[in-house]
């Protein structure tokens, strides 16, 4: 089959590799009908996540049709149409049973590496480095899915792939971000980053009863979606005049947003002096993450407010204003998304017509286009907002919002 392979920082290639096969009795093999590139893939592409190896198959947002199932699989059969959550969970450990699916005890074959770095290991993820299990990802024509009775959600209606594909990650991720923000009806919420995760976080914040959602980014096409599809008041943080902290204070009646969501993560773009040092530090490997947005969010949130962090951080942070976090008594909630918890209710919201997640798709491409699209996605060129891949289509770029 053809697969998107990581071949070193800044380099992905389409290679012909062996087809995946059943390894464990709970496995299924899926023929992938649609897959996507995620903001998280950029951290791999840019080389900030350790334990990637040449030849690793990328991709954790995918859906498709069941091709084959292992001997222990009961709920799925050949021909079923499914969306696969990007976190791999056993469904029976303490963590799975308490809805902390992304912290599953039993899915990561390399748990020992993660334990060395983090104390304890989270669940395995598809296509996301060997600390997270080294599972081959879904930017490929076929993919092996462990615990097939636990993760995949069946799509029984004839709803198009592209409306349900984002159940694999970014819709639940934006939704959990809003849930973690502990929003109460009437609240003001600010969201840093209007990438796919930020956009779903904005929409979800309204689902949790937010009165006003403020969205921050610098790309007009992203700010436009935030404003015109999701209903946010938008701030272009490069437009100069006030600082972000000041703008957020003014927009929240002088007290700061009740909750702030950091949907940017470790590779935040920054213009202030601290950001300049972060870039140097990160280049010298003195710090692994650039916490520009995290610092601003800590500074801007109201006293006693909540910071929700879906944006990914991988290692150590430098010069974090932890004193401000302490001094204002804020709450922080974060982590990989507990995907399995959200699949059924969010599928229902789509089938009920409350939201059409395909609103953010800007590009539909064939598999041979993927290496170029990684660069476009990284540089946010070509007004890109979300790229979906048909892995059985060789070449051809459809621009959906030309």
């Amino acid at each position, binding site marked *: *089959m053809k*697969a998107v*392979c*990581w*071949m070193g920082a800044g380099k992905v*290639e389409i*290679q012909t*590799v*062996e*087809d*995946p*096969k059943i*390894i*464990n*009795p*709970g496995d299924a093999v899926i023929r992938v009908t649609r897959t996507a590139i995620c903001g998280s893939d950029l951290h791999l592409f840019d080389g900030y996540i350790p*334990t990637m*190896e*040449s*030849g*690793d*198959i990328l991709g954790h947002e995918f859906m498709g049709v069941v091709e084959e199932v*292992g*001997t*222990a699989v009961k709920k799925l059969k050949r021909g079923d149409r499914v969306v696969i959550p990007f976190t*791999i969970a*056993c*469904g*029976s*450990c*303490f963590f799975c*049973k308490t809805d902390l699916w992304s912290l599953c*005890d*039993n*899915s*990561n*074959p*390399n*748990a*020992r590496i993660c334990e060395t770095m983090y104390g304890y290991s989270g669940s*395995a993820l598809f296509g996301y480095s*060997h600390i997270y*299990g*080294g*599972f*081959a990802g879904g930017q490929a024509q076929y993919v*092996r899915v*462990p*615990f097939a009775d636990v993760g995949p959600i069946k799509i029984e209606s004839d709803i198009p792939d592209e409306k349900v594909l984002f159940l694999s990650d970014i819709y639940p991720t934006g939704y959990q971000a809003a849930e973690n923000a502990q929003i109460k009806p009437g609240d003001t919420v600010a969201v840093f980053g209007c990438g796919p995760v930020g956009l779903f976080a904005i929409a979800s914040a309204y689902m949790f009863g937010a009165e006003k959602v403020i969205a921050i980014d610098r790309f007009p096409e992203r700010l436009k979606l935030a404003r015109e599809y999701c209903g946010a008041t938008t701030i272009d943080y490069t437009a100069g005049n006030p600082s972000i902290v000041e703008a957020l204070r003014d927009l929240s009646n002088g007290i700061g947003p009740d909750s702030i969501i950091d949907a940017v993560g470790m590779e935040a773009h920054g213009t202030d002096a601290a950001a300049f040092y972060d870039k140097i530090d990160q280049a010298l490997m003195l710090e692994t993450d650039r916490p520009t947005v995290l610092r601003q969010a800590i500074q801007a949130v109201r006293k006693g407010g909540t910071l929700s962090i879906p944006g990914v951080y991988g290692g150590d942070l430098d010069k974090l204003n932890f004193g401000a976090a302490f001094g204002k008594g804020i709450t922080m909630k974060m982590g990989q998304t507990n995907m399995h918890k959200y699949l059924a209710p969010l599928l229902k919201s789509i089938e009920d017509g409350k939201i059409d997640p395909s609103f953010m798709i800007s590009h539909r491409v064939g598999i041979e286009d993927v290496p170029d699209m990684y660069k476009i996605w990284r540089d946010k060129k070509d007004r890109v907002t979300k790229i979906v891949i048909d892995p059985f289509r060789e070449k051809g770029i459809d621009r959906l919002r030309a």
Partner: protein
Amino acid sequence: MAQAAEQFDAPSFPKQGAIWKPLPKGKQGKQQAAHTVQTIRATPDQVFNLYTRIEFLPAWMEGVVSVQRLSPKKLRWLMQDPGTGKQFEFDAEEVESVPGKRYVSRVTTGPTAGTTNTLTLEAHPSGRGTVATLINVFTLPGGLFTKAVTSVVSRSPAQITIENLRHLKEVLEAGEIPSVEGQPAGRRGISGKLKQVLYGENMPMPPGTSDRARPDDLPESASKGPSKWGVLLGSAVAVAVLGSLLFVETKSDPSGESLHD
């Protein structure tokens, strides 16, 4: 505070605490101790039953090819270092066996004679299953052979202790041991090839309930030994027997061999 008092019986003070006693760890002369603790979502009997079923040891314990019963309390172990393919044998005796609570065995022959393994089981105080503590005290005679014995799968004695109890938990809770062994990948390059072992792609994980026949699927150099694992563990059989261990509340399976009968 007020809430806590409503939910529980409010404690009164003074209240007697305890002093923490570290579990065995580290080297002393020829002995090296290692330990690991896991909470397993299963009853103490279920954990005990799987741990003491010798025909299942190759399924979850690293480097085990087979274990045979020589007499009611004597076992012969055949191990293989997957890195080198070297096989070695030793005998062990059962020192203590209290179903659902405690199992102790000791190696009696070969250069590691004197090595003891102690598994202690207790019901989790708030109902999360079983707290399992595994303490291994390895006797290390020194030399190359020791290395083969104690660094099975290139693991340190401490790590192999941790991994073995982890695998037991994985099989009991999830019904399988997670693995990426044999999955597809693009071109690995030189460093990638080296690290494939480290990252488990061609480092043999115990097969758990899968029908990966070990050691036939090891790299060439390691695949010379006889394959008994495949015969021992067809996946359907394994799933069925594990199923009976997990879901039927029988204390011991009369048809199967069990170390405590």
